């Protein structure tokens, strides 16, 4: 179905979406790029001098940049490990026959629908607070010294919270993928004498490979921008212990009002995200026709 008339109609129908997204992408991007070369501070109104690579220089040589990079990687990597491994486990478990499967599935998935600010607050206050939190109370009750989670293990605590939010997502996708596995394949393997472990390794895992890549890449996109959990719990601290790249840019531009520096950070964040994005696009592109 492709007449000239319908092709013309199609172009007309698609153009609002394309123009809007183009505007949304190009305009701010160009401005970010432009600002990143200016000395531009909102509380020090001046001439907004063109300073070349100065902002990039200061941003990249700032010790907090290095810390932020490492924190970003640890955060993303840590959450991915927990959610992918945990997700495979949950998916295998939930796929087994059991009573009340629907209800149990809903319980496992629930955290995904909790908004980031809420989940951060719940964990910070009701669970990880050394005095009144449940963990602290249990520790005291058993005669141990309660742990100050955000003081002693700030990044680990955030990884924990974010993992709680994303584990359901990984589970849901891996479970869906697992359910699409042809049962006859598994039965054939069983007839061929494969043990459960071998069936998992040679049949289920290859079948899940695509879903696992999808989980990793999509989560990476979202995890690189983790923000609310940090803002609500630690404000990036203590020191820069939980400052990731997103939070660092937020601090420079909206807390220190240094638009130039913030923009330079933004450009760097974009470059990093694009490296990840290229992998994702390749993969999704391959699956487009499937």
């Amino acid at each position: 179905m492709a007449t000239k008339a319908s092709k013309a109609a199609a172009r007309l129908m698609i153009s609002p979406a394309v123009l809007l997204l183009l505007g949304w992408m190009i305009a701010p991007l160009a401005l970010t790029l432009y600002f990143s070369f200016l000395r531009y501070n909102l509380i020090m109104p001046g001439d907004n001098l063109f300073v070349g690579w100065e902002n990039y220089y200061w941003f990249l040589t700032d010790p907090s940049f290095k810390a932020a990079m490492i924190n970003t990687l640890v955060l993303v990597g840590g959450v991915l490990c927990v959610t992918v491994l945990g997700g495979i486990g949950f998916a295998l478990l939930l796929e087994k026959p059991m009573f009340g499967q629907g209800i149990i599935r809903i319980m496992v998935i629930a955290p995904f629908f909790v908004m980031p600010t809420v989940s951060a607050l719940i964990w910070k206050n009701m669970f990880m607070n050394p005095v009144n939190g449940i963990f602290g109370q249990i520790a005291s009750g058993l005669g141990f010294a309660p742990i100050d989670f955000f003081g002693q293990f700030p990044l680990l605590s955030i990884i924990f919270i974010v993992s709680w939010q994303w584990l359901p997502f990984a589970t849901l996708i891996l479970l869906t993928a697992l359910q699409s596995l042809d049962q006859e394949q598994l039965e054939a393997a069983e007839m061929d004498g494969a043990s459960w472990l071998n069936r998992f390794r040679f049949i289920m895992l290859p079948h899940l490979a695509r879903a696992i890549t999808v989980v990793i890449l999509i989560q990476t996109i979202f995890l690189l921008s983790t923000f609310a959990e940090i803002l609500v719990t630690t404000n990036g601290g203590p020191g820069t212990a939980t400052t990731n790249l997103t939070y660092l840019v937020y601090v420079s531009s909206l807390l220190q009002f240094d638009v130039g520096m913030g923009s330079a950070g933004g450009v760097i964040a974009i470059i990093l995200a694009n490296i990840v994005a290229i992998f994702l696009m390749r993969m999704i592109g391959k699956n487009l026709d499937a």
Partner: protein
Amino acid sequence: MGRIQLKQVKKSFGECTVIPPLDLAIEDGEFTVFVGPSGCGKSTLLRLIAGLEDTTSGMIEIDGTNATLLPPAKRGLAMVFQSYALYPHMSVRKNIAFPMKMAGVNEAEQTKRIYAAAKALNLTDYLDRKPGQLSGGQRQRVAIGRAIVREPTAFLFDEPLSNLDAALRVGMRLEISELHKRLKTTMIYVTHDQVEAMTMADKIVVLQAGGIEQVGSPLELYKTPRNRFVAGFIGSPKMNFIEGAEAAQHNAFAIGIRPEHIDVSITHGQWQATVGVAEHLGSDTFLHVHGVPGCDPMTVRGGGDIAVNHGDTVWLTPDPQHIHKFDAEGLRIK
């Protein structure tokens, strides 16, 4: 009125020419069947007439007016699709009413035409059902009903029976033929099944690789196929072709004999052959025999009571009146 004329119509997708320039005239009231193997361009040709595809060049005239650039809705044609293409969210009644609603026909007239169509197609009891609750045959009737109520200048059918099982197909074939006799509207029918073509058509257009191989009435095509392609395509089981010395005796590159034009005997005849498979159908027996020079296996149609089986020897004699002769290019020698 419903006279459709194609003048030098050509269709290419990019570099690839699907239909080389082609001329064809379909007369008013005629039942025309486009037949050919899959991928021969017959559906594309139908879609060009419908306006669902653009012609690359050439002109399509409907009742004398140039319709080449008209959108499908403006051509006054109705189409029945292979998948029926019923609107799943609408009841049968609403499905049938849809084209009239689009044309702005008033409610009273709509109701009248819906009931007339439903009555003609035995759908009266199903008007309030959704397509999902109907059998394949009923869906097909709804699709036809939706086409009828528009009172189109011509009906286009795109392999409408290919999704039905064999028994239903025969029934629907008759219904469509009867519908044509009653309405006397031009119909263009696309199929890959030569039996449908032979049984329904006033005029058959045999297509291959986008080109027209032959146009004619069913019997014309059967009796005087223009070339080996048409000869092999029309008729079931297929015509046998013999090349080599046997053909040379007839001053031809190849000769063709239909299975029904070969006499079978267990005692004497022109060719001796061994039976490979014998299909006993009761009314007929189809023998697939080996050993005839220049044609292996040869298919022969004999009477229902021939008692031969695998491995038996038979003698075959072709009916000299029904030998088709072809030259090296595959064209018929008169």
